[in-house]
């Protein structure tokens, strides 16, 4: 006797604990196995690009905070680079170092969150997540010292940074770096070689390099597929040309590699932070820019950074007014999500959640 079976379509999300926001996947299952995947975005659409056309250039910084809200500093940086190119402003050295330093701290915070939620998706009861959050909280405290905000920082401004770091910031940063080593070792010991993590993620959801390149995947997900593509090396911005660091790559392109690349990038970010502390010198922190910025009419600029999720770009067109004529955001999370269907079909429900975690998407950035 044959049992009649039929595929089952399930809506994963938009209210689901593991979709990292309000993201919806229409998935057709054959038992536990995935037959079809259709990602549906747009539940967090706030019209950032349109709003930017109604704000002046300084106000838009606050909008960028709310894109990828776990790496606001890097978003600020990308936007400010675009505006500076538009205006042709040279940023003072100290501001460049402060930007590099805060961006790398933010990358550590973002990767910690990525790792923590990846392991949460793997089914740990939150222990690695809480370990990661312990360190992330310290970084957010440092940001609070810098600018009074923890998540939506708006620390960087066109032409530099909002304010120089207070005197007690530097000892606090040193203390953090000292403690972080032990705390991070604890996280690594807990998870990096864990047998269950290995069997769950090794060889799962392979992203071949050619597909990754064709789909414009960037960031750790691309580097896990074997290409050392990092804008901090390729086209150094701010103070990255004076920093010494490696670009960790992996060749497998599976879930474990994406996770492993993030683990290693945290080490490199800490290296950069330490170099910033050594090299930074006193000086002005903001270029002499007018209060209301008016770039010349017809000017266009593209500012890009290596954000924690991949290449983040802001394309600005000016019509000579106080707000941009058009702002286009190239968000890495959206680009990385385009490969979901290729990654997921044929794997199981449990792998789907883990793969989404390993891509480390942020819905604030996907929907904009």
């Amino acid at each position: 006797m044959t049992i009649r079976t039929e595929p089952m379509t399930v809506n994963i999300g938009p209210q689901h604990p593991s979709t990292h926001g309000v993201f919806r996947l229409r998935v057709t299952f054959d038992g536990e196995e995935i037959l079809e995947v259709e990602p549906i975005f747009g539940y967090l659409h706030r019209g950032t690009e349109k709003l930017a056309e109604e704000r002046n250039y300084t106000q838009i910084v606050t909008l960028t905070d709310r894109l990828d809200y776990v790496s606001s500093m890097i978003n600020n940086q990308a936007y400010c680079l675009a505006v500076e190119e538009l205006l042709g402003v040279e940023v003072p050295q100290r501001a460049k170092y402060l930007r590099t330093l805060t961006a790398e701290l933010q990358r550590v915070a973002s990767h910690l969150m990525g790792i923590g939620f990846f392991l949460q998706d793997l089914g740990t009861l939150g222990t690695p997540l809480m370990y990661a959050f312990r360190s992330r909280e310290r970084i957010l405290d440092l940001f609070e010292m810098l600018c009074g905000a923890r998540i939506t920082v708006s620390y960087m401004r066109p032409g530099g940074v909002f304010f120089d770091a207070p005197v007690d910031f530097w000892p606090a940063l040193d203390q953090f770096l000292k403690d972080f080593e032990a705390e991070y070792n604890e996280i690594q010991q807990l998870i990096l070689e864990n047998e269950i993590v290995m069997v769950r993620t090794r060889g799962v959801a392979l992203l071949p390099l050619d597909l990754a390149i064709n789909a414009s995947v960037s960031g750790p997900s691309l580097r896990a597929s074997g290409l050392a593509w990092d804008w901090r090396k390729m086209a150094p911005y701010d103070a990255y040309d004076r920093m010494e660091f490696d670009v960790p790559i992996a060749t497998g392109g599976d879930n474990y590699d994406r996770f492993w690349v993030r683990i290693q990038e945290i080490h490199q970010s800490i290296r950069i932070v330490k170099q910033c502390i050594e090299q930074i010198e006193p000086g002005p922190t903001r270029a002499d820019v007018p209060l209301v910025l008016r770039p010349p009419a017809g000017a266009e600029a593209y500012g890009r950074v290596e954000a924690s999720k991949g290449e983040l770009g802001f394309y600005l067109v000016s019509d000579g007014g106080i707000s941009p004529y058009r702002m286009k955001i190239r968000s890495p999370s959206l680009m990385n999500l385009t490969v979901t269907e290729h990654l997921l079909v044929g794997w199981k429900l449990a792998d789907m959640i883990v793969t989404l975690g390993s891509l480390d998407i942020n819905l604030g950035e996907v929907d904009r």
Partner: protein
Amino acid sequence: MSCVLGPDNILHDTLLFRVIYDFVGHLLPCWLSYIVAGGVIMMLLVNGVLMGAGLFSWVERRLIGRFHNRIGPNRWGPFGMLQPMADVVKLIFKEDLTPAGADRIVFMIVPVAMLAPVVLMMAVVPFAKDTALANLNVGVLYVLAVTSITSVAIFMAGWASNNRYAMFGASRGVAILISYEVPVVMSLLGVVLVAGSMSMADVVSAQTIPFLLVQPLAFFVFFVGTSAELNRTPFDLAEAESEIIAGYHIEYSGVKFALIQAAEFGAVLTSSAVMVTLFLSGWSGPLSSYLGWVWFLMKIGVLAFVFSWVRATFPRLRIDQLLAFAWKFLLPISIINLFATALEVYFLRDGAGTLDTTDLWIMAGINFGVAFGSLLIFGTLIKEKVRPARPITGVTLSSIEVS
């Protein structure tokens, strides 16, 4: 006038029952006092399990809080101890929803069907000397039979909820429970062979040294199998929060949810109680004639702590890996254990068919060897070939190739 319980009565060995029966027997007719005494015992047992479940939910949340580097519930009562009560009160006042299209009757039965086996399991477990509610001569079999009710309850919950996540949870839960039942039964056969009886009281009295030492492999299999049946990490697929949200009990709210939670936390305690009885020599210990229940509760506490510890540490396995683990790893080693134990019992027993303490020590020695050997062999066989993490690749600007 006093009532006397015949020695052939199943409750004759239960000290507590006899005390109550004698006391009530002075006031009431015998048939009524029998019912009253039984009712009192049942009240004690059911409420004991429920209170224990509440207390354990607090203990586990505090423990996991510590594992997480946070404090855990600490507001209501000393050290937050009354938190379970606050939770229950909150849940009672919540709206009791039944989803549209649900099979209402089945949906309603599930919480009770989940809780009943948990309480029923305690009926044969001796807390102290002569204190089992019923000294069944097939106690071990009874425990196994009763625990498998849970799989029916899980499937009822999944089917009646009219929810696809619940269906996922139910099908996973049933697959796990059926698979893990087999190695668990196999591992218990070893214990029964050594004890020479299926009665829980006899198993305890046979443990001149704890069967944890005599049957290490069986304990391992039973512990792993039990945590799979209890739906606890790394085997919590039936209610995997990050995947299928809450699994089979996704649609339950209010009192029904409270009952299901009580059943889950209570199941940990009762399973620990069974494990203590079968492997950790039950209530015996120094001064056990008077303080047997203290030893019993302490041992339960240790096992429950281990359960919480495992829960806080491990990631979850995937369903195919989980079933492969049961059939390819646990089942073979439990068969090896059964085979080795049978041979040992055959050669070591004396004329009357009993084993003395020296025999048990010899068995412990052999079985530890068998355990290490088989864990090593089957561990390597089932282990998937996983590549270790590579050392970091240093890349400088010049070495980047763009294709």
